[in-house]
């Protein structure tokens, strides 16, 4: 049985990364600010683009332009300086900023100002557009939920990518492959059991259990690290983590 000391040390298994892109975005250090905005843009550009497309019913070209404009202002105008985590969640704040931007947009002036369709970020809009085709159009009253869900999709997508790279660099590609087949596979007709995976990879079923446990543990660690980057304080991080990993009581574990 563990003693109190060993139990207290368990918190070390949870993300200890204290770097916050939200805090760093206000840094005096330009390199630090750049890193912060890259991190924020990586997590949020797809939800922002999709939100503009569906909430404001903009064409792909307009939505691309407005997405670039949004992140441009985030960087240049210091949008985030007025963000207060005690008053609203970051996503709510960003959504309000997007709405304000679109409502006040002056397309011609905007293009003129930035030199006409200037690209400040290299974003794969075609992929985002392809993803939109997978989605059912959200009801007009559920666009907030839509933005939230797209943010989760973006965050988890980044975490899966990071997990893939991490497993590869550590010689654990089989761990990731099992995770991919068991937890990411959408084809319900070919959903594999642990025994199926054990046979396919010539492993013992207990190895499949352990490999999957490793991959899930690492996925959670990475996802929480990325979430911490998007929060400004421990309290906000805990609130967001609870919200992110909240699940319906009926969900199977």
């Amino acid at each position: 049985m563990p003693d109190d000391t060993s139990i207290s040390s368990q918190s070390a298994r949870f993300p200890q990364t204290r770097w916050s892109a939200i805090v760093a975005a206000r840094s005096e250090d330009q390199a630090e600010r750049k890193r912060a905005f890259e991190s924020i843009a990586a997590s949020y550009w797809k939800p922002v683009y999709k939100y503009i497309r569906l909430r404001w019913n903009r064409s792909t070209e307009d939505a691309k332009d407005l997405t670039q404009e949004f992140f441009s202002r985030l960087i240049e105008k210091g949008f985030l300086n007025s963000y207060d985590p005690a008053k609203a969640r970051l996503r709510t704040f960003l959504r309000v900023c997007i709405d304000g931007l679109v409502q006040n947009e002056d397309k011609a002036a905007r293009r003129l100002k930035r030199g006409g369709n200037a690209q400040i970020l290299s974003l794969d809009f075609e992929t985002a557009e392809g993803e939109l085709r997978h989605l059912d159009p959200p009801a007009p009253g559920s666009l907030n939920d839509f933005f939230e869900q797209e943010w989760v999709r973006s965050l988890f997508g980044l975490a899966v990518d990071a997990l893939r790279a991490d497993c590869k660099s550590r010689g654990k590609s089989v761990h990731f492959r099992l995770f991919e087949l068991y937890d990411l596979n959408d084809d319900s007709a070919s959903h594999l059991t642990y025994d199926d995976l054990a046979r396919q990879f010539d492993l013992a079923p207990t190895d499949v259990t352990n490999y999957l446990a490793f991959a899930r543990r690492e996925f959670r660690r990475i996802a929480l690290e990325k979430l911490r980057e998007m929060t400004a304080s421990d309290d906000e991080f805990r609130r967001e983590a609870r919200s992110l990993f909240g699940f319906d009581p009926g969900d199977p574990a």
Partner: protein
Amino acid sequence: MNWLSDDALRRLRSAAVSPDLSGTRYRLLEFVARGGMGVVYLAEDSVLRRRVALKILDPVASSPGLAARLLREARILARLEHPGIVPVHDVGTLADGRVFYAMKFVEGHRLDRHLQQIPSVPERLRLFGKICEAVAFAHACGILHRDLKPENVMVGPFGEVLVMDWGLAKSLHPQPEDGDTLIDESPAPPSDDSFATPAPNTSDSSVHTAHGSILGTPGYMSPEQARGDVTHLDQRSDVFALGALLLYLLTGRPPAPPALQDRIPRPLVAMCRKAMAADPASRYPSASDLAADVARFLDSEPVSAYPEGLFGKAGRFISRHRIAFLLVLTFLVVRVLLLLVFRR
């Protein structure tokens, strides 16, 4: 980046929070319930080949304070070996760092969801007596439950009754390893529902707090507990909650003054009032005393909470000897009728 469907997101969420049982003797079977401090899963003990409930610290709310609280709950349960209290089998730390304990998996229903299956008042009272017995045993061991309510009572398929969720329990005689001081002063988990039991528990309304604040469930909390007067709590605080529970069993509603249409026998109303008296000194001194009054009522004997008059005594006497009374009454009526017939 690969496209992640909504189903994949749901599976990832579940996978990320599901406990890592590698290296343990347990095999995860299914999610059971979630609370502010922990999540309860059904698992199989692969060594003993039996099903157990695992209460595992919430991965998100995890903190050293909560880990200590869960461990303390397990230690308290380990001290309470009683048929009416769920037994703990094991405690430890998972590979992912989360503290857990294993307990008996109770196959039954939460009292609040099972009450309609028990229409008879005497049956409800006998069930209540079992709850009192378990709580009285805990008091004898120096443990207060502090969150007695229907959601924390399980009724098994054979009528067995188990008092669950001792996460808010307090030791009246704290031992150093209990860490009671630490627990009472530790920050509250940011939770809308405080804990889990081995029954789906989505409407939990308990309130965890730091020392000196509210701790318990509104409606079932004694006034002193509601004031956050933690240092002056004793077993009479649990007696208050038992009184509220008795009222719930009689009315089927959360504790409130009983309405006339409830047709609750006056002695039972008096027992609820006595148990729920604002002044602890006016309550039953112990859960056993309350249980004894319930037993007396069931035996049609006078109860301590209700001094009855002549009519009351006669009514109770008749009720207690109903068959004999009916036989005598029938005999007398027949005699009178025969007398009247033969006089003509």
